[in-house]
């Protein structure tokens, strides 16, 4: 008998959750800024409004307004830390993880540790061209979230990445699949006649049309990898 009945049951129950599609208001995704924001949220769930504003070249207030529009349509969820993520896209328990990695300095340190496992604070600081103090601060946060672990080696503290992120990424797969399916259904229910142009585990490309206008939505589905970009 093959193993994995538990995971299969979890997926089957989660699928029910999103089966009755909520219609997407027709005009919602015809707005280029809103499309871009939704894409960014798939790329880096739980990023702060400030971070999103920088990347989308918008004011923080405009970002908040668009996010509220998406939230009103039930497409994104707001968490207790007042950051947003696409609804049913990530495990809500991973919010803190994404918030830590959405922050530039911590992300840089984490990437450096991934690239050169066993680096010391000094080595990381030199590679990134930042102060040791700042590496120390970021490393402490990453350690607290079990993303990296430190091993004492004489008078050095060497940092190694844990497998937490890759494990979470693996666990995310069925969820991403269910999310993409439900999302297309939502567009359909909203009368946007979606055409799936490409669908892989990491991305879904959907063409939506309203009247004579047609737009393409490009959604990355692998946030546990893209958050590091």
């Amino acid at each position, binding site marked *: *008998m093959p*193993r*994995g*009945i*538990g*995971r*299969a*049951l*979890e997926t*089957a*129950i989660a*699928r*029910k*959750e999103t*089966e009755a599609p909520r219609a997407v208001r027709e005009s919602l995704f015809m707005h280029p800024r809103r499309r871009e924001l939704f894409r960014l949220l798939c790329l880096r769930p739980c990023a702060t409004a400030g971070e999103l504003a920088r990347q989308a070249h918008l004011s923080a207030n405009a970002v908040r307004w668009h996010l509220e529009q998406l939230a009103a349509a039930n497409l994104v969820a707001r968490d207790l830390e007042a950051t947003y993520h696409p609804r049913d896209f990530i495990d809500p*328990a991973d919010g803190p993880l994404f918030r830590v990695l959405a922050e530039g300095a911590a992300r840089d340190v984490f990437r450096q540790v991934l690239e050169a496992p066993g680096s010391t604070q000094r080595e990381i600081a030199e590679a990134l061209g930042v102060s040791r103090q700042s590496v120390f601060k970021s490393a402490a946060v990453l350690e607290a979230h079990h993303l990296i672990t430190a091993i004492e080696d004489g008078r050095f503290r060497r940092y190694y990445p844990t497998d937490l992120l890759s*494990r979470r990424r693996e666990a995310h797969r069925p969820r991403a699949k269910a999310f993409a399916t439900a999302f297309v259904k939502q567009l359909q229910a909203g009368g946007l006649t979606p055409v799936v142009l490409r669908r892989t585990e990491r991305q879904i490309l959907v063409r939506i049309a309203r009247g004579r206008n047609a737009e393409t939505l490009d959604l990355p589905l692998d946030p546990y990898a893209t958050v590091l970009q």
Partner: protein
Amino acid sequence: MRKVRTGIFGLNPLLDGGLNERSTTVVIGASGAGKTTFATQFIRRALLDGQEGIFVSLDENKEQIIREAVEMGWSDILDYMDDELLVFIDASGREFSNFIRKELPAFVEDWRGANTRIAIDPLTPVVWTTKDAYEQRDLIGFMLKETRKVGTVLATLEEHGPGDLMGQETVIPMYLADCVIHMRYKPMEGNPSRRLKIVKARSTRHSDQWHPYHIVKGLGLIIDQGDFRRSTTAKIPAQMKALLEKREALSPQIRERVGKALDLLTDDDFRGMKPEEVLSYIIEEFTEE
């Protein structure tokens, strides 16, 4: 029928060796009785044997259950979770009942023949997804009938009210389950002791006494068997067989029927009844006037 060990220390002998494989059990108890500990211990027993376990938490407090299990000294469940031998599922009662109605048959079809352990803790929110008693019975009956096809199932039920098992939310699942265990805990009374009783267990010779139990860190639930000793001797049936031999005016047919019935019995089944009397009742039943 094959037996599976419950994982609860001291309970197996009271159930004639354990729970029947691919059966459904309902554990009923008030808040604080130890239902979740019972369910966790039941699942963990399967994991120790390399079997898969699924814990469906309908209270949406997965983290708390895991934390409590770790505090109990069962931190190995974290490793089992990493290996996906154990999967914790958080769902609301509504999600789970929608799943039962629409997806369960297809799911069971996919996994028929799997032999896992499934705990549903607590089942109460599923019962409460509808007010209609007929629908409740239909939903719970269907769920129990289907899930047992992929493993041994244990569901807990919250007991509200006086603790006499009469509430509607307990009565319906009780009828439908193969085995019912009542955990009694009245923290507001002078002597807040915990006691447990096997209310029913289909095709099982089970204890019908109240047994005190304790929750001990590192071990979990331990049940005090008290003076309960299941007697497996068959002196009385043997005596009856001898009596049967002595009866002369019996047709061979009756002799065979009675003999077969006696083969299955132990002394314990007579509960103080006299062998000659029981024998005469059986013969009377099969004798034509």
